[in-house]
């Protein structure tokens, strides 16, 4: 598998942030229409260094440090996309996307439909998201559900370096607008990256670990929590099947339904608040489509319906090993 053109490729351990950086670089090299724009993405390389070195190598006309205004970033990116560019915008933290919300809802998501395909919107909105980094207010949110509710957008997220590298390139080459969520607390986690072997399209969910007793699905920052939970459950003799959704809109529920038909039980894990969310949607849809297979209702381990708490409390807020195991047990006890 790790071979291309007969040459063995080393699957180097790479951080997720570095993999994104490499992916961005690859896209910029491949297509001169790809631009990177956002606050501090230039000399600084972004506060997480995801765009490190890009301005130096591609110039200020390809990597734009923008004025401090998110509606401005997204709104001008729309115009650039109309002009034939493929802008990759960066929102510095999850909590700062909301000043740009109208542009996303009213222009980014609707332009192609409004013009019946005459205008395409190959625009990427990168958003580092999620908690667990001890940050101050507005720096630890999981706002993905809002975007899943916006027709016309696509919403994806990566959970490891390989997906980061490939999915960001797929997002950039997609002719539709893609909101690309990056699990910021996993930026510095290393995983093998084999740049020669793409892991498949970004809109498909992937079974990360096969199992037989309970299906557990999640995405992005919570995937490592799932791995730990599966290990712990295995010790107790419970076999969890783990699915990484990768795409939150559209949802690729095929593998989930297949799994649920086998296990009869599903736990959805997400940092996003519970109410009217992507986890609600998964629960509702899976129940609709696999009603007779379910031995228990779909259970959710989600963020509470509270503003994100001060960071010393975030360990209570976030899904963790114990919460997942508790939900698994509750599902099995049904």
């Amino acid at each position, binding site marked *: 598998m790790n071979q291309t053109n007969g040459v063995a490729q080393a699957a180097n351990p790479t951080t997720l942030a570095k993999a994104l950086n490499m992916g961005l670089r690859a896209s910029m090299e491949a297509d001169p229409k790809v631009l990177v724009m956002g606050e501090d993405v230039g000399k600084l390389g972004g506060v997480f260094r995801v765009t490190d070195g890009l301005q130096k190598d591609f110039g200020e006309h390809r990597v734009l440090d*923008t*004025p401090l205004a998110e509606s401005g970033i997204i*709104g*001008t990116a729309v*115009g650039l996309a109309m*002009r034939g560019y493929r802008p990759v915008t960066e929102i510095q933290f999850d909590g700062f996307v909301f000043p740009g919300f109208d542009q996303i809802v009213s222009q980014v998501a609707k332009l192609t439909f409004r013009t019946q395909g005459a205008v395409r919107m190959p625009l990427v909105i990168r958003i580092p998201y999620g908690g667990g980094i001890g940050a101050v207010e507005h720096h630890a949110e999981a706002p993905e559900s809002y975007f899943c509710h916006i027709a016309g957008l696509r919403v994806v997220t990566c959970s490891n370096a390989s997906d980061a590298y490939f999915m960001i390139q797929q997002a950039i080459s997609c002719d*539709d607008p893609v909101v690309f969520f990056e699990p910021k607390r996993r930026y510095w986690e290393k995983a093998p990256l084999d740049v020669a072997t793409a892991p498949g399209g970004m809109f498909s969910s992937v079974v990360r670990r096969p199992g037989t007793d309970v299906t557990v699905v999640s995405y992005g920052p919570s995937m490592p929590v799932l791995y730990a939970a599966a290990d712990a459950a295995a010790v107790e003799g419970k076999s969890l099947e783990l699915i990484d959704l990768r795409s939150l809109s559209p949802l690729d529920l095929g593998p989930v339904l297949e799994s649920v038909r086998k296990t009869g039980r599903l736990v959805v894990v997400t940092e996003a608040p519970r109410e009217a969310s992507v986890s609600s949607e998964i629960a509702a849809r899976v129940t609709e489509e696999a009603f007779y297979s379910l031995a228990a209702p779909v259970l959710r381990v989600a963020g509470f319906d509270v503003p994100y708490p001060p960071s010393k409390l975030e360990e209570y807020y976030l899904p963790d090993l114990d919460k997942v195991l508790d939900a698994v047990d509750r599902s099995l006890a049904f």
Partner: protein
Amino acid sequence: MVDLQPTVSRAVEHEAEKWGGVGVGATPTQAIPSPQQVIEGLRATSRGDDLIQILSPEGVLTPDPDYPIDVDAALLRGLYRDMVLVRRFDREGNALQRQGQLSIWVPLLGQEAAQIGAGRALRPSDMAFPSYREHGIAWCRGIDPTELLGIFRGTDHCGWDPVKTGFSGYAIVIGNQVLNATGYAMGQRLDGKVGSAADGENEATIAFFGDGATSQGDVHEAMVFAAAYDAPVVFYCQNNQWAISEPVARQSRVPLFHRARGYGFPGVRVDGNDVLACLAVTRWAMDECRSGNGPVLVEAFTYRMDAHTTSDDPTRYRQADEAQAWKLLDPIERVKVHLARSGMADSSFFDEVDGEADALAVRFRAHCIAMQVPPPERMFSHVYSEPNAQLDRQQAEFLTYLAAFDDIPVAGAR
């Protein structure tokens, strides 16, 4: 000219200069005139002396050396024809709404000069981002008036191809298209279409918005970005004195073109009922942009002669005599007077244009009435450019469901 709004006294304005136009002195608690009075006075945002005008309401032509324009019969007759035709189909739009053929119409009555002047200053390679009242700009971009009808009849959200026509879709969320225009202009600059020695290679973008829109954050951010990137974009604000029921004084204490001062780019105010001035000033502004001196703000001082839309009832918030006063400043009349007086046109020309206008109206109406309701699957088409299995399935399920009603005529059965 009719002076429609109180003019700030010279003395107050002088005192005001220190603050770039507002008359609150540096000395605190200064007593005379009362701050209230000063502010109220300044709020009037009167037309003022800064207004660029070439063709007076009486039809007298006075060239402006800063905004030179060669006026010949062909030009003036063309502009006259444009305005008459645009006004004619605009009136027809109103009538079609009254007769139930359109759900709504957004009249441009009174703004013909502001639009035709700007529209005729554009080159095919330029790009325009309208708001929702820019039927005159659409006309100049070569969009057939019938292509506008779908939006108001409810059969589509945009009847033309923005890229091919150089005319973006109508934008309804106030102000947000101005940022898109700025981004597009940034792209023109990135493409090397600005400041080239071969002027024919150069391009610029023009963004249309109203006086009310100036209050929106997006319009500000557009000006900030445009200034930051020297974007070749003309911010063309049609100040028609009203944002639905709110007078422009609700949005600003000072004339809107002053906004440019805060960003450090040129801002000018032009008589929006003078098609020659609008043309000359917009040409200048577009040229500035094309040659690298963008952005530029142009405030076209005009008047919304009709209701905000056919749903609106302006008698609730403004006096009829205001519209009467503006009638004397009519954008078409002054051109007609000048054409006639100067001998550039005679009655046969005017008759010809009227005939053309009538024919257009007939065609416009006939087209409207014959418009088909699109099929239900249209609802799912082009939501995405690439396939989306989730949505395809929603569509398939719905069409299967609909098929069960086969015997009933589908549209209307729901």
